[in-house]
């Protein structure tokens, strides 16, 4: 059985990819953002997922108005980086995981999701920038990727609710897969931004921070929000945030936040990254008190508490009990 071990929300601003490609990560403009990333990169490296399900949208690169799939899942062995008008980015192509991708496809279609199946699909910055964010500039990406491309350009995109439900269906499929795999899932795009019109450049920090908090603790608010609200509050391109709901639907109801970075602005966009793991099983106070130290420390860390075996066991215990509302 495969298992979803991590959930990621991540903006996919093309300028972030360009900054990395052109060695500008340490100039003044980009430092605040890139300086924060090592912790996220260490987190994903330690988890070492075999496969990353990467939910993104195409930006007039692989798909045009000629044919607009609501959800397209990539089942190919390889996906090339698209030419978005600049020539192709000189970064590794993306290797897929056809077996898991086809399994998810079969399972989701039978469960009533009307996926478009893509054997050939160039991927653009929507897919490649999150890879840069989490993996830097390797000679080959250290994870296989199942790209899921969502229409968010042509109105109407799928609703946030529909995205969330697809996430649930994906999780079910992953857990029923016949093979041992550690799987991470990322919803990308956002956060608040608007590229077009007289309102271009709009940023709504309060909305974004609420979105992140709610994503962790109270996601019904995000899931039940209408397109209209997303567009009005987060900008016409902030609608991309519906894609994070696919990730969220694939996670436990309770999650633990492992990393967060929010930065205004990269290019025209509020840049956000958040990393989740599924919250551990809930334990009674008695069970927790009975834990030996290394187990307790591990449990504390899983709950998002920074704890170490060198700390006083009493302190760690107190933090855990308090976090769970037992004291």
């Amino acid at each position, binding site marked *: 059985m495969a298992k979803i071990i991590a959930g990621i929300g991540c903006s996919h601003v093309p300028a972030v990819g360009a900054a990395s490609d052109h060695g500008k990560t340490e100039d003044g403009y980009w430092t605040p953002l890139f300086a924060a990333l090592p912790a996220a990169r260490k987190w994903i490296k330690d988890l070492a997922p075999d496969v990353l399900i990467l939910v993104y949208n195409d930006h007039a690169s692989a798909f045009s108005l000629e044919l607009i799939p609501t959800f397209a899942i990539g089942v190919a062995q390889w996906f090339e980086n698209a030419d978005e008008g600049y020539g192709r980015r000189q970064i590794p192509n993306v290797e897929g995981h056809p077996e898991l991708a086809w399994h998810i496809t079969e399972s989701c279609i039978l469960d009533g999701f009307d996926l478009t199946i893509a054997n050939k699909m160039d991927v653009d910055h929507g897919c490649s920038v999150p890879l840069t964010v989490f993996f830097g500039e390797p000679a080959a990406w250290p994870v296989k990727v199942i790209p899921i491309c969502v229409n968010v350009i042509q109105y109407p995109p799928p609703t946030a609710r529909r995205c969330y439900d697809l996430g649930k269906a994906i999780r079910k499929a992953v857990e029923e897969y016949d093979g041992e795999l550690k799987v991470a899932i990322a919803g990308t795009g956002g956060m608040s931004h608007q*590229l077009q*019109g007289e309102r271009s*450049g709009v*940023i709504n920090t309060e909305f974004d921070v609420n979105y992140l908090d709610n994503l962790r603790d109270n996601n019904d608010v995000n899931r039940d929000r209408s397109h209209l609200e997303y567009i009005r509050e987060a900008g016409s391109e902030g609608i991309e945030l519906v894609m994070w709901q696919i990730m969220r639907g694939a996670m436990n109801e309770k999650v633990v936040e492992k990393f967060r970075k929010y930065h205004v602005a990269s*290019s025209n966009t509020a840049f956000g990254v958040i990393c989740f793991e599924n919250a551990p099983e809930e334990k009674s106070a008695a069970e927790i008190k009975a834990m030996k130290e290394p187990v307790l420390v591990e449990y504390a860390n899983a709950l998002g508490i920074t704890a170490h075996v060198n700390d006083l066991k009493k302190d760690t215990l107190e933090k855990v009990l308090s976090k769970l509302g037992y004291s």
Partner: protein
Amino acid sequence: MTKEEKAELRKAFADIPGTYVFTPEHSRKGYALNIFCMSLNKAENRAEFGKDESAYLDKFDLTAEQKEAVLKRQWLKMLELGGNIYYTFKIAIFDRKSMQHVGGKMSGITEDEFKEMMLSGGRSIIGNRSKKEYEV
């Protein structure tokens, strides 16, 4: 969705200041314009467009107004005529212009002013949620 629900939604979209939601109506209007923009993903088409913009544009089914908006790089006009920013931005890529340049042009400020605005937190959402806010 009923006629009334749809009309209400369109009204609500139109109430967001300076925003052109890419509805079916908008998409139908801008189809040829956006398809032209999409063609610039290919290097050989960029070369051809570069040689003679007007002649290249004639291969697509643009209205005279759309063609003029492209030739004159009227970014806002292109949106009004059915363009979508992800498509029309292909022209800016061709021109080696940044999104801030285009953002400035659309909102009536210079690229530097636009950059400055983004560095200081972006355009405020306050007053920008609804045209009605202007009237308060």
